[in-house]
């Protein structure tokens, strides 16, 4: 294809991506170096019957004026990145210096908002991804043994948690685990604890969110692995049976190796999707015990009085850096594939 016709074809798509992905990323980076203006303060002399007093007031009009002239705020350099709400360099240094043991140190660092969000995001990504893949693999094996006629309806029901809107899916589960909901009440009965609430402790909240994540994501690996099982090499499988391999040995030595390439793909997509975990935290109202990077950005932007653009932008940049780090192995592999294909 000539360069000319190539660019004629791809132009609309490139323009859209440039305007609404590349430019915003640039805008995020610029914003992250700015911070909201201080309020303009004026000293006024307040004279009453008991003498005069100096009083400091906020000059609202001047503050508004300043905001209109320089909507970005004032330049702050890397200040926002290093402050308490983000990398918290000073606080971490202080904690490292003054903490008694490793446990205390980790606990205190975890209490800093950015590290709290980062730990949950990473924990969610690396717990939910493998568990969803395992569950999906198990379901795929089981569905594959079903008679043909049952497969359609079973796949239909299995797809639902994945297709449903994440916020809606988490609300549906949230209402069920509510202490007055069907699951919450049943759990209270089982553990014989009328005050049991899954929102009560961070651990329980984390587990609830992980369970939601596995429930929501498992259908995707299921479908991919199920498709992979349809292309199993029958000859290899039959010779394994003739050689006396039992069911587990056949799974271990024939099926799993056949599915490994699919598993890397599934794992990658799941990691990308899990890393942006956000809606379940809103749906489960879990922000007291679990926050994620995406949620932290949303929270900064959703302020009722002031939107903290600078703070949100700094978290965004750090998040994108995290995404790129996660992706590096894949990028290298794609590069190799591409060179091989050419």
């Amino acid at each position: 294809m000539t360069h000319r016709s190539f660019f004629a074809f791809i132009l609309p798509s490139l323009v859209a991506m440039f305007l609404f992905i590349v430019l915003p990323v640039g805008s995020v980076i610029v914003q992250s170096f700015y911070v909201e203006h201080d309020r303009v303060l004026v000293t006024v002399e307040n004279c009453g019957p008991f003498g005069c007093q100096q009083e400091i007031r906020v000059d609202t009009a001047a503050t508004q004026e300043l905001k209109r002239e320089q909507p970005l705020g004032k330049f702050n350099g890397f200040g926002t990145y290093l402050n308490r709400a983000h990398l918290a360099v000073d606080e971490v240094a202080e904690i490292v210096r003054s903490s008694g043991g490793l446990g205390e140190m980790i606990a205190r660092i975890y209490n800093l908002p950015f590290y709290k969000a980062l730990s949950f995001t990473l924990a969610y990504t690396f717990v939910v991804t493998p568990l969803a893949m395992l569950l999906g693999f198990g379901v795929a094996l089981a569905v594959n043994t079903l008679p043909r006629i049952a497969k359609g309806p079973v796949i239909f029901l299995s797809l639902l948690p994945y297709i449903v809107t994440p916020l809606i899916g988490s609300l549906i589960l949230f209402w069920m685990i509510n202490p007055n909901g069907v699951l919450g009440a049943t759990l209270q009965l089982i553990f014989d604890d009328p005050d049991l609430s899954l929102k009560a402790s961070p651990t329980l909240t984390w587990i609830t969110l992980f369970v939601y994540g596995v429930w929501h994501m498992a259908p995707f690996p299921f479908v991919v692995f199920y498709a992979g099982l349809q292309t199993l090499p029958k000859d290899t499988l039959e010779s394994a049976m003739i050689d006396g391999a039992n069911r587990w040995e056949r799974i271990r030595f024939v099926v799993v190796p056949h599915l490994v390439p699919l598993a890397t793909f599934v794992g990658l997509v799941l990691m990308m999707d899990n890393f942006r975990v956000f809606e379940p935290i809103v749906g489960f109202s879990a922000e007291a015990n679990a926050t994620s990077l995406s949620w932290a950005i949303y929270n900064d932007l959703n302020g009722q009085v002031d939107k903290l653009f600078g703070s949100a932008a700094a978290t965004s940049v750090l998040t994108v850096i995290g995404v790129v780090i996660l992706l590096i192995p894949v990028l290298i592999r794609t590069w190799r594939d591409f060179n091989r294909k050419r």
Partner: protein
Amino acid sequence: MDFSPHSRSRTQAIVASVLLLAWLVIAAFPFFWTVWGSFKVEADFFSRESWGNALLGTSTVRQTGSAFTLDGYRGAWIEREFWRSVINTAIVTVSVTTISLIFGTLGGYALSRSGYRYTFWILIAALVFRAMPHITLVSGYLLPFFEMNIWGVLPTAIIVLVAINQPFTLWMLHSFFLSIPKDLDESAMVDGCTRFQAFRLAIMPVMWPGVITTGLFSFLLAYNDFAVTSMLLNQDNQTMVPKINSFLGTVQTEGTIMYAVAAVVSATVPLFMLVMFFQRQIVSGLTAGAVKG
């Protein structure tokens, strides 16, 4: 996994079916429970005494005289004007899907037919964009959109969703077009067609399966989005998902939580239909990336 039913032991079959049944209950029960409960009053759906009330509708009978009530739906759709959000969602999803597919087919076709190095870089950039959490982009849009005074309206959200959707659409259609033999359009060009004529006459007639599959996923992205629509649309233009979230913020008084339940069920029904009618395409779309790399 096994191919001849008679060669497997009975216990294995039973264990597999029990586990599968457990999974099906876990996967589907929450939806059926919520659909059923949306026709009850709050005292039943969130019953303090027993979940049996939610099944039988004890309080619903006491309060409304019948075991099923449409109060939740009436409150959500009429009183809180959920129908507006439904219309907005329809506009957004249809526009996003259409525009995404037009841009995506052209771009994906070009990427599949060009072997130059820059195609690789475009695909890699698309992969990175695909992985970025949408909310990080939203924080870049907000301030410029406020300044340009285009915040809050549907066209803004539509074009942003199209752009966010492009990386995925490009990848999917690129790998789909790779599976269409090059000879098809090249022989058309030998016969004197321009590149665009070759695309229109030789490729377009055979591209619909791939386009439909990709379209389904574009639709789902637009329909399921919360990050973009909740931040970029004002109150009047809200689509369903942010509207449901706003119900949660305001509903504190008795009974109105059922509005949210009814709205959730209303928003889930189209997805049910989608899976029912397009199950085959959704499955093939989910596996397409894996099989073709």
